[in-house]
């Protein structure tokens, strides 16, 4: 059975190409546009790709992940955060996540699409679609 990737970004211009890429690579995808969508669907996915600014004027992406972990649904693999900003800007919230035992990767937009695909395949141990 194909693994499922959660693609969470309020910007359609990022969400669509990323979801298309994983679908073409044989994965199932769940698209999310908001913090509520992430909280509702994260547990259904094997890998979470989450935009930090959800929506665009807040760091609700990190908050959404924190909320899911708090509810006892920790991710099985490191979370992949994507953002126009650098990780330094969210250091305080990321520190809190690390303290909860959550590992993560950070990709600064724009990034090479292949890099993201390979990173996910690597996380899934090469058994991916």
């Amino acid at each position, binding site marked *: 059975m194909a693994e499922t990737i959660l693609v969470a970004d*309020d*910007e*359609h*211009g*990022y969400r*669509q*190409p*990323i979801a*298309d*890429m994983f679908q*073409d690579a044989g994965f199932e995808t769940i698209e999310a546009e908001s913090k509520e969508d992430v909280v509702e669907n994260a547990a259904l996915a094997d890998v979470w790709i989450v935009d930090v*600014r959800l*929506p*665009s*004027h807040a760091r609700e992406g990190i908050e959404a992940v924190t909320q899911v972990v708090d509810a006892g649904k920790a991710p099985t693999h490191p979370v992949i955060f994507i953002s*126009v*900003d650098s990780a330094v*800007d969210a250091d305080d919230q990321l520190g809190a996540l690390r303290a909860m035992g959550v590992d993560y990767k950070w990709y600064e*937009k*724009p*990034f*090479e*699409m292949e890099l993201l695909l390979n990173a996910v395949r690597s996380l899934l141990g090469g058994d991916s679609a």
Partner: protein
Amino acid sequence: MRPEIIEALSEAKSVDELGKAIVEKCSHVFNADVCTLWRCYQDDDGKRKLRLLAASAKAPQTLAQEITYEIHADPDGQNADGVTGFVAQTKREVHVSSFEELKERYKSCWKGRMDRTQWEAEPARLFRSLSAFPLMLGRQVVGVFKLENKRGSDSGFPESDRDRVRMMTADIASALHFHNLLDQHSERLMQVPTQMVEALLRPFESTQLVNEIVKTVADRLHAEICSLWIVDPGGKELSLADGYGFPTETRRQTYQMSDPAVQDEEIDGITAWVAVRKEPFWANSWADLKAHPSWSGKWDQTMWHDRGENFRCLYAVPLLRQHAIIGVLKVENRIGEAFFTATDRALCGIMASLIVLVLELGHQVRTSIIADMAHLVRSPIGQVPMNLSMLEKEIKKAQQGGELRLDRIESYVNIIRRALLSADMTSRELVGIAKRPAYLGGTPERDCVNLYELLTERIKELQPLLYNGIRLSLSPSNGVENCDISLDATDRTRVQIAIDNVLHNAIKYSSRGGEVRVVLEKRPDQFCILIQDDGCGISEDDWPRIWEQNFSRRAADHPQGTGMGLTMVKQVFDGLGWDCEISSTEGSGTEFRAQIPRTEELDDGRDDTGRR
């Protein structure tokens, strides 16, 4: 000082507690049913009055009464306001041992306001004796001290009691005066933060902010000169940010910062010393100033002509942000005094803290605003390479014999166009918001601008960025070839940006294959620009907020906007005296309408076809 007063003073944290302690102790010591303490003050109209400060336990209801006595000028007590007022006005003691005696001897001034309250409306039965004493500080009366109803005696307070009270009154007067001074000090300290915050929160640009700061500080501290110095980001130099009362030729003053480990003699001047040592400094004479090991006289030649005759005093405090030095606040030459008082110095310290707070808040607000704005531009731009990459994949796949997925190709192209349009619009909006008409004296030159040409130009610029099959059209009405208005260069740019914003909104909310129609009408007294779309329209919930700053409606699949576009449009049009309005039907579309008054000087007799 009498032990009872020392004890009361040491226990009291306020003048009210002091008064209470004094009257309780005295009512016990003198066996008085009632002991009251009255304090002189000046009301808002400048009249001198007495107000009850404290009353002993037997007369608590008296305190609830807002009874005051006015102190008139006549030292003989003519027209005195009550017996208590008489004591303060004449600076004479009063001693009576019956109610009848009180009313008879002081009939010219007795009013009975206190007596009815204090003696439960039966003063004739309950009142037995009174001794009242003025509280003198030098030749000035600062209050009145009263004892009533000596317990166990019908003849009032004996001379022995009166002598003891006389010995205490000077101490009580001193204690009251001391607390008066503290109250004045506290009142002045409390007023300043409010006034300072008002000055600091006035809406102005940063250069004016510093100017307002130095003017406000000079005013509140009664200083002839006030200067604010800021340490540069590298921490190497302390420069004058602005000064009030400064000779203009001194405005380029700087000091070199030093390592804190160096000796005082090696520091580049006293102002630099304050910054390096992070300590305040004050000098009350030219000699004091020159005696400081860091004094170099670097700028004194210009400031004081190196003679020191005009210099009287100085106080400088460091501006510290979490122990890091960011600058120095300096005041010089106290007006009306030989030096800056302890209160002045305390005020200066408070102001320094407020200045640090405001400078830091301003920096943080600017930083976060800039970060947010940068994100709004960078985010759509970042979509371009990622979608181009997917577009290339689709094309390559098709070229290699794979399925040609036109829907995907179209989707990526639309995303790219939309992203570029969004980034373009956001950057224009930021320019529009930042740009204000700036005149360097005189009236800027105005030029003739043809509205039809302006609209044609804007539409042509946006054409390459259209997506989803959306079309832009311009419909000329009658005689629009002569639709000329008069604008200076800055206003022309702002109008252009405003029109771009409205066009962008119309495109953003249009559905696939929709049309955005621009219509230019020429009417007898005005031109009218209409921008109409057949898109989703504005919902009832959003309608009240469309002109609000920071309100942004999210269009489907479209990057986030600044939320300032329509606010900027309104500002531009209002500034030019043009009316604009929006009408919309949810689900059917929106129309923007701008009405531009015609300029008479351009009305040169040409008819609607352009012929004279």
